[in-house]
């Protein structure tokens, strides 16, 4: 029997803000444990939350970017459960009045486009981070109070590939909006998934299982594959899937039930009395809407029209916002936009993939790359020299390409009398090849040009050399 898979995702995304959601502590990853803390985010007696407006703005921007409706009356609620990562043993979140309602994310899998609907986006506080040792547990409260958005999708995905594409698209939008860095290593994005199977032809959704707390896209993808197999084999053998909460064991590649204690909660939501409801002014929302950054799709289209790039180049360059930013900074310094695109897509991206760098870690600044491209484009240096300069710049990121070319005497020789001298010398020395060329062997010309390059120590303009050779040999008779 064939089964139809239904997948929905709840994605937690940490916002990029200066301070935490309810206190003035820095929202910063990687500091010494328990250094970005204060009585508020530690849940001391008597403290009260004060809402960070930047967090609200970014959440609403996220909603506007995916076409959500912004709630006219929003509020926060307390969600109660006991766990050592919870300073107050309740989490301040939004239960029934989230900031963003509805919206959609477009994905593309195997060339097929599809809309994934978003149910809502709400804002809440992140919890602390627990580390369990053999006989003790440690809690780092630096993370407690980090603004955390939860994006709840509709169950619109039908394959693990679609779920993966959705996560990638969501990440792209969040990074484009400056909403989150979506750095998975730093836990900026975490995911719970719901998945159910039903036999083809059946309308009613099957019983769903929830897989909690995955923090890599690969993990989500593999967990969905594993869970699809598990549910399939249950249904195949005539069994029924239980509604339960699972976790994914990436080493074993299987989903496992969580202990009931870990999830069986009555959260007892009720309105947070320490915060006023948020009633957003329509004008403010409209202003924020007018300040929305470009979406990835829009930027892709603009790259085609503004820089006259092929669709393919535009897609590659805009896939990562920071790469697109880099391209635009470099393009601003040259006239040949396609040449810059070629350089970014070949040399720059090759180095990134070899070194495992992000574009932000790439040592050659965009203006230096622009200068290099201009030198090559203006035939000041030939392409071999350009690649050499590129390699030197990787080692000496601060250096100026122009200065390097001068210092190392790499400028092409385009002076026709100098080239003529090389041509005469080669014709005299390589009579056999000259003869071959005269007999129609085109490869002989390449060899002769190579000899000129050798004599000029790589600086001769190869096009000029080839032309001069043709002219001279042609007039020899």
């Amino acid at each position, binding site marked *: 029997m064939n089964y139809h898979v239904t997948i929905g995702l709840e994605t937690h995304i940490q916002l990029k803000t200066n301070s935490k959601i309810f206190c003035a502590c820095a929202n910063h990853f990687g500091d010494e444990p328990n250094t970005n803390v204060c009585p508020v985010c530690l849940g001391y*007696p*008597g403290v*009260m939350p004060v809402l960070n407006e930047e967090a609200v703005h970014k959440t609403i921007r996220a909603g506007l970017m995916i076409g959500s409706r912004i709630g006219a009356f929003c509020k926060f609620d307390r969600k109660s459960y*006991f766990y050592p990562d919870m300073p107050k043993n309740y989490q301040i979140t939004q239960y029934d009045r989230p900031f963003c309602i509805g919206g959609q994310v477009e994905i593309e899998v195997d060339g097929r486009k599809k809309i994934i609907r978003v149910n809502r986006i709400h804002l809440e506080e992140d919890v602390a981070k627990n580390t369990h040792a053999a006989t003790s547990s440690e809690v780092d409260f630096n993370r407690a109070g980090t603004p955390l958005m939860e994006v709840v999708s509709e169950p619109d995905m039908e394959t693990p590939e679609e779920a993966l594409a959705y996560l990638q698209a969501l990440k792209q939008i969040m990074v484009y909006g400056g909403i989150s860095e979506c750095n998975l290593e730093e836990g900026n994005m975490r995911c719970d998934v719901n998945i159910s199977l039903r036999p083809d032809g059946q309308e009613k959704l099957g019983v769903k299982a929830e897989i909690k707390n995955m923090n890599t896209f690969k993990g989500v993808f593999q967990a969905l594959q594993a869970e699809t197999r598990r549910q399939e084999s249950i249904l195949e053998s005539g069994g029924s899937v239980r509604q339960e909460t699972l976790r994914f064991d990436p080493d074993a590649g299987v989903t496992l039930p969580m202990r009931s*204690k870990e999830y069986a909660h009555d959260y007892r939501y*009720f309105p947070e*009395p*320490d915060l006023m409801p948020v009633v957003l002014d329509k004008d403010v929302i409209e202003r924020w809407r007018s300040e929305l950054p470009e979406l990835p799709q829009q930027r892709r289209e603009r790259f085609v029209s503004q820089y006259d790039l092929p669709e393919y180049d535009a897609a590659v360059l805009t896939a990562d916002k920071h790469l697109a930013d880099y391209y635009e900074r470099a393009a601003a310094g040259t006239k040949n936009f396609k040449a810059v695109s070629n350089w970014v897509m070949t040399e720059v991206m090759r180095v990134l993939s070899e070194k495992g760098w992000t574009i932000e870690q790439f040592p050659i600044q965009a203006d230096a790359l622009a200068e290099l491209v201009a030198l090559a484009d203006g035939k000041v240096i030939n392409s071999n020299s350009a690649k050499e300069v590129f390699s030197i710049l990787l080692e000496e990121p601060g250096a100026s390409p122009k200065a390097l070319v001068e210092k190392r005497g790499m400028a092409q020789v385009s002076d026709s009398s100098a080239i003529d001298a090389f041509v005469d010398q080669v014709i005299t020395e390589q009579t056999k090849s000259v003869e071959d060329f005269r007999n129609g062997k085109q490869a002989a010309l390449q060899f002769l040009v190579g000899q000129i390059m050798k004599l000029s120590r790589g600086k001769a303009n190869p096009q000029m050399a080839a032309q001069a050779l043709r002219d001279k040999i042609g007039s020899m008779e």
Partner: protein
Amino acid sequence: MSVLNEKTVEELSVLLESGACTSQEIVRDVLAEKNRIDPVIRAYVELDEEDALAQAVEADAARARGTAGPLTGIPVAIKDLLNVRGQSCTCGSKILQGYRSPYDATAVARLRSAGMVMAGRVNMDEFAMGSSTENSALQTTRNPWNTACVPGGSSGGSASAVAARMAVASIGSDTGGSVRQPASFCGCVGLKPTYGRISRYGLTAYASSLDQIGPITRTVKDAALLLGAMAGHDPMDSTSSPLDVPDYAASLTGEMKGLKLGVPKEYFVEGIEPEVDACVRKAIAQCESLGAEIVEVSLPNTRYATATYYILATAEASTNLARYDGVRYGLRVEGADPIALYMNTRAAGFGSEVKRRIILGTYVLSSGYYDAYYLRAQKVRTLIARDFSEAFARCDAIVCPVSPTAAYPLGSCADDPLKMYLGDIFTVTANLAGICGLSVPCGFTSGGLPVGLQILGAPFAEQKILDIGYAYEQSTAWHTEKPAIQG
């Protein structure tokens, strides 16, 4: 002989200003009286004498420098649930024993910046849950007028210390009457300001939508002085009001001519002690003789107030008190895993009334019960607030009893929490409606126990109720009576 401790804030301000006394002398007199009679009353949970005197030295130095204000150098006792940097904040509970506050509550910071001396922590019902201070896990506080009786609660330590003249003034908190009722039981003035008038930042939360800080003093003017020092918007408390703070004390007129005072018929019902009823009616007649017009008003939803209060307050409390888990501060009783540690800590750390209210609050928020209890109670709360706004359309303030009884003997309500809950009937309404209320002494029972008159005002009508209270107080001598206590 200690005498300065018997003075009011207003009197001490004058004495300090004229150079007739120093802050150190005042603090020494307070300490001497505390050491003489507190072994009997047991109002104080902690009083670091050295620290109080050091603050007094600093206050005197400020005065010598010419940077003193009217409150500089005057000591104040703080209910043990307001955070004062470096001091205890037990909230009357074993679960917070050993905790030292790392920060000042906003109200405390404002009193400090006015130059006041933070002189000691006073007892209370555990987490402000109670009306007799008997629910303190630390000690039993007695009523200075009759040491066999309760001081009221939950700010019982504040009221008994002020009444016994071992504190000049005190800061308490009022969630369902916890400032007004002990003030009434101990013959003091107690003010519950409008919700949002004083920042709650640093006030350990019992029921966040009802809690409000308020002063307990010997005179209305003192209450006005302290209110003025603490009130005003605080960026750390989003629920604090941005409204301007008038100079309450300077604006007191001592007049109530032409004011309309509403008497709610629902507040004079069966069950009220005849002597209390008589004192309050006499006080209302006195107001009339001072030129006020007495009108009858109705607050028909009063009968639902106690039930509404105990649903909403316990719901909020069940979450507010969830943080006491032994992980970060206070008591910790180890367990095999974190959940066991929680259970052991909370089982050992909380008293039975606190546990009762946490369970009640957890229950009313539980799935399947939320609509029937919490949501319903919120709706009734709206109706109660509407009762008041309709009443205030017909009068300037409402006058009524604070409590159906005067102070009762220690232990008499111990086995009957419901009986104690019902004693809050005249005070919880102000918290539910978010309005302000004042308790002023208005007589004594034949057994010599004080009785209070409650004056309720519309939101942010503190000036009006203080005016009425002041005019009444100036025409009577009740507030000058003092208990005789054998140290």
